[in-house]
């Protein structure tokens, strides 16, 4: 019977059904946890772009986020940061293709719509030691305090030799990552600006 052609087919179908059932069960069980991990990673990023906020545990992050942040009405717009009801800035989520995979993060913008309060990358898979250094303080701390320029290139990431006080210094050896990062940041900021101007002057 074991070598019969029908038995082989039935055996394969049966085994596949059993394995799939078990995996679907496991995926269902952990689905909520996986979704909340992604949500916490985002919320942590939104808090990290405002230097005044200090929180540690996941539960604290979620509590502060729910209390102080107001979600945007449409995609491409920023979260409003209102600690104690007073508007203190905007948290703009951005995402786009890096060198190897997607880069996702949040950029914090002050109430003057120009000053960057901070930036945080919560998902990236750039080259370790090169592009992946965007998550190191020496790089991301440069953003805080910088002003958006006018035009289509509000943020400029330039090679250290050419960068002025207004620019972000790129990472040597990570040209691809820096070029793409600049592009995706500027797309997000430009889109946010246009939407904000459209709603401000109806």
């Amino acid at each position, binding site marked *: 019977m074991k070598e019969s052609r029908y038995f082989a087919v039935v055996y394969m179908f049966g085994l*596949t059904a059993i394995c799939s059932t078990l995996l679907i069960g*496991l995926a269902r069980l952990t689905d909520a946890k996986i979704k909340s991990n992604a949500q916490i990673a985002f919320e942590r990023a939104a808090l990290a772009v405002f230097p005044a906020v200090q929180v540690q545990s996941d539960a604290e992050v979620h509590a502060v986020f729910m209390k102080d942040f107001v979600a945007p009405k449409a995609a491409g717009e920023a979260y409003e940061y209102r600690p104690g009801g007073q508007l203190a800035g905007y948290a703009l989520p951005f995402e786009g293709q890096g060198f190897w995979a997607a880069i996702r993060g949040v950029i914090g913008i002050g109430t003057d719509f120009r000053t960057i309060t901070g930036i945080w990358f919560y998902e990236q898979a750039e080259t*370790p030691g090169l592009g992946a250094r965007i998550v190191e303080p020496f790089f991301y701390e440069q953003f805080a305090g910088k002003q958006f320029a006018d035009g289509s290139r509000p943020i400029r990431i330039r090679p250290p030799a050419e960068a002025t006080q207004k620019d972000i210094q790129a990472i040597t050896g990570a040209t691809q990552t820096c070029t793409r990062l600049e592009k995706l940041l500027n797309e997000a900021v430009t889109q946010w600006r246009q939407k904000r101007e459209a709603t401000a002057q109806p």
Partner: protein
Amino acid sequence: MNGQTATKTTNQIILDGLWHDNPIFRQILGICSTLAVTNNVINTAVMCISLSLVTALSAATVSAMKDWTPKTVRMMVQVLIIAFYVIIVDILLRAYWPDMSRSLGPYVGLIITNCIVMGRCEAFAQSNRPWPSFLDGLFNGLGYSVILLVIAAIREVMGMGTLAGYPLPYFSTQWDKWVIMVMPPGAFFVLACLLWVCRSIGVKEKKA
């Protein structure tokens, strides 16, 4: 691998997996992941643990089911079982260690296509009992792990000046970091040198 698998003792299985039939420098299997995940010791360690567990459990399962599995579909069954365990590992990492899951990216899923896993299922588990198969899978996984960790340590220290994320005294300050070490080509150089060393030792052992 030598056709005398049925009579292998536990010690032989362990030694073969770790040294005599080491998957990396003897069988040259699993090279793709060797090149991809060895630029950082922590990532490599998690990858190695995942691979060892998957290889051991898949081999044991394949062995336990070999008496009922029709010969015509045995490879499909092996791939199915391997994929089953890999997806479990992937889901668990995503749920309980999201940072690691993000930094390993697609490589966890790619354990399915790692030649070592299917190689052990087909070469050993298909003709041995579950417990020896489990050991064989585990120690082949560990043999792979040892080499990968050595490569990762060399690459991380020379390329970034850190070991498992901690800055080392000389390498993080005075050492001129070799950027190529953290890029994929760096793995080729380190792997080739390591193959050379390990095989030279193997040749001497045979002569003695």
